[in-house]
């Protein structure tokens, strides 16, 4: 038996650090991140960054370790509204187990079930990568912009739920998983070497394309359960997309010299027609979408026409979002695979 640990001398200097007493007030949405973004604790362009794990506002320890390189400029990662997007994400979490009316699944014609399962297979794959990508960027975000990190952590959860729900869908109605997706563009996302590059390619382009598709879920989904899946997933994608648009807007406002660099990322990504969302022109995906949109294999041509509308919608909304972010000139240099749908 050893003696009790020796009692060290009292220090208590930590009691003397409080020169700005703060009592943030909850509002009708409770006590939000916005409510505590106040006074000395508020986010600002100029902050005393130190690359340690210190979160903004805490007093620095002289002996604190650096944790690796982090972005040292707010504009490199920031998105206005990221507080609100985080709070919305927390409030609007849903359960793939209980919030989808699985009991509304009904036996479908074999080709329709296969088409839905093929689409679900592709989406279970795409959403898997969409969780990895924000994960790898977390260590690069300074504690001075911790709200961005928090938002990405909600995105990781959202993408997990999407992978989960599409896998469940494929296995819940007499079907199964089918062919692997083409994967085109997914490497672009994981290969990004800069936060803005990642965000523009993943949040704005890839998730934008997926979002446009999910918003056509009423047409695509053959059952109430399918429609609900698309609706719930679209709600999450909207936040990710909003983050990307707001980040791009912030970058272009604070670092306008990066405009051409950002165009370059998009130039490269648009060469793969999926633009990071998995290639929807890959035959298994294109054909399954055409079957679902047309209402069966016998209406395949009608489905193809609707598929073309989907592509037009994806590209139109993509350009609109870029326009909102301040990159309206993208329209003039859109890659050929997308330009054909931009008219």
């Amino acid at each position, binding site marked *: 038996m050893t003696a009790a640990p020796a009692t060290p001398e009292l220090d208590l200097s930590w*009691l003397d650090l409080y020169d700005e007493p703060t009592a943030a007030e909850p509002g009708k949405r409770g006590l939000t991140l916005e409510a*505590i973004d106040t006074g000395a604790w508020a986010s600002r362009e100029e902050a005393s960054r130190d690359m340690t794990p210190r*979160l903004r506002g805490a007093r620095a320890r002289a002996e604190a370790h650096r944790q690796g390189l982090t972005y040292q400029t707010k504009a490199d990662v920031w998105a206005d509204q990221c507080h609100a997007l985080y709070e919305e994400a*927390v409030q609007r979490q849903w359960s793939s187990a209980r919030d989808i009316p699985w009991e509304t699944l009904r036996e479908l014609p074999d080709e329709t079930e296969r088409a839905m399962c093929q689409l679900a297979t592709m989406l279970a794959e795409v959403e898997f990568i969409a969780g990895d990508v924000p994960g*790898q960027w977390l260590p690069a975000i300074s504690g001075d912009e911790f709200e961005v990190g928090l938002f990405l952590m909600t995105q990781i959860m959202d993408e997990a739920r999407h992978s989960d729900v599409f896998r469940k869908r494929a296995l*819940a109605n007499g079907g199964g998983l089918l062919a692997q997706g083409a*994967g085109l563009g997914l490497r672009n996302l994981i290969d990004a070497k800069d936060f803005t590059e990642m965000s523009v390619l993943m949040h704005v382009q890839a998730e934008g394309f997926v979002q446009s598709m999910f918003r056509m879920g009423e047409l695509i989904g053959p059952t109430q359960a399918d429609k609900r899946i698309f609706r719930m997933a679209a709600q999450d994608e909207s936040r990710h997309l909003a983050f990307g648009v707001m980040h791009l807007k912030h970058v272009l406002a604070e670092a306008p010299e990066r405009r051409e660099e950002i165009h370059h990322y998009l*130039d490269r990504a648009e060469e793969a027609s999926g633009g990071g969302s998995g290639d929807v022109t890959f035959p298994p995906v294109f054909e399954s979408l055409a079957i679902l949109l047309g209402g069966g294999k016998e209406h395949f041509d009608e489905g193809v026409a609707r598929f073309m509308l989907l592509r037009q919608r994806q590209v139109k909304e993509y350009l609109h979002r870029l326009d909102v972010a301040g990159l309206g000139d993208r329209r003039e240099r859109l890659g050929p695979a997308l330009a054909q749908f931009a008219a």
Partner: protein
Amino acid sequence: MAADGEADDGTISEDLREQARALGWEEGLLDRALAHGYDVNTIAAVLATRLSGDQAKGFLDREAAQPSFAWMESPTEWGVRAVPADAEMGLTLADIMVGSYGEVPDLWTNRTEIARGSHPTAVQEDMGYTIFEKAIVWAPSVADLYERAIRERWAPATDLGWRSLEALPDDIERAICQVMTEQSERAYAEATVLGRWLPEISYGFVEMKLFMGSVIYDLARHAEAFRKRALANGGGLGLQAPTGLIRGATEARSFPELMAYLFVQDSVLFSFFRAAGNLARNQLERDLYAYAALDRERLLEYQVERLAGFLEAFPDRRDEQHQYLRKAEVRLAREWEDAAVREPLELLLGGGRDGLAAGGAALRVLRHRQVEEYLGALERAGFVRGERLHSGLRTWLEAPVSAGEGSLLATTGRS
């Protein structure tokens, strides 16, 4: 159809044809594009992007392809109709682990992002995963833990009684703020470390990755909630948390090292949150600690199961785990000695600045319990730390605790 080099109703200029040749477009491709329905402006735009001949041909070939529906015949298991085992719980991950889809291989060999159970395409890029062995990451309960995380979710903004906070004596409020500052940073930092490992884990173990997503999200809410408490009642943020322990986690060269190292923190924080009833000065704090304990409990369950499975699969790596645990224990012991870590707890446990001595005694009880429960968690994984426990933690375990002191700590309960 006109041959290349001749104007086709004047729609394609010789200049465009020259551009196409320079880019390696084969003869006739421009006309094929026109015939396909592309107008000359689109073609000019395409040429301006310097699209290679191969890319242009590939694009047109794909456009013209007739549907084959070959994917409908993918040789995967078909006819699966997963149903909820418990209607109350809904359709869970455990429910869909049926047939071949429920088989988690000991060794996953596909290097792409293919969904486990789907049919691979012939050519795919390597996505750079490095973890292909089940025993490295797996725990039998991951699917259940994931669903539990979703069922037990809570929202700091609205599930805590922010309006119930009342002013506290300055020294108490500042001690609370110091604890909150530390816990907020510890949670955030652990989430960032775990996030960095997600791209390493292959799709063979998708259920584990889903659970890890829920852990990262839990830790985000902890970082948020502790920060909010620091800024909600007339205080502020205090001194940043010590960085030694978390720095060690970032140094991990493998997932087993990372998890062994984090086992120490996950265990002692679970014990801390569970026992933090006497630190709390109001129901909000009691609820906050109880929620945090609930989340950490799931993580610790994963840790225990993963370690047990890992040791069973790799018995020769047992001693190596001792090394990682020791590294973490050394740093933890040092951090527990830090004045800004120790004193706020003593102050809160003692009821104020005047009660620091009594608080010190209560803290000894807490530390004793944390070490004891840490060793207990390891033992549940089949791992006896025994004499190898670092002396900086052993000293807490072996410090005499009187019966009276033992009653100083209550277990946290949520309202």
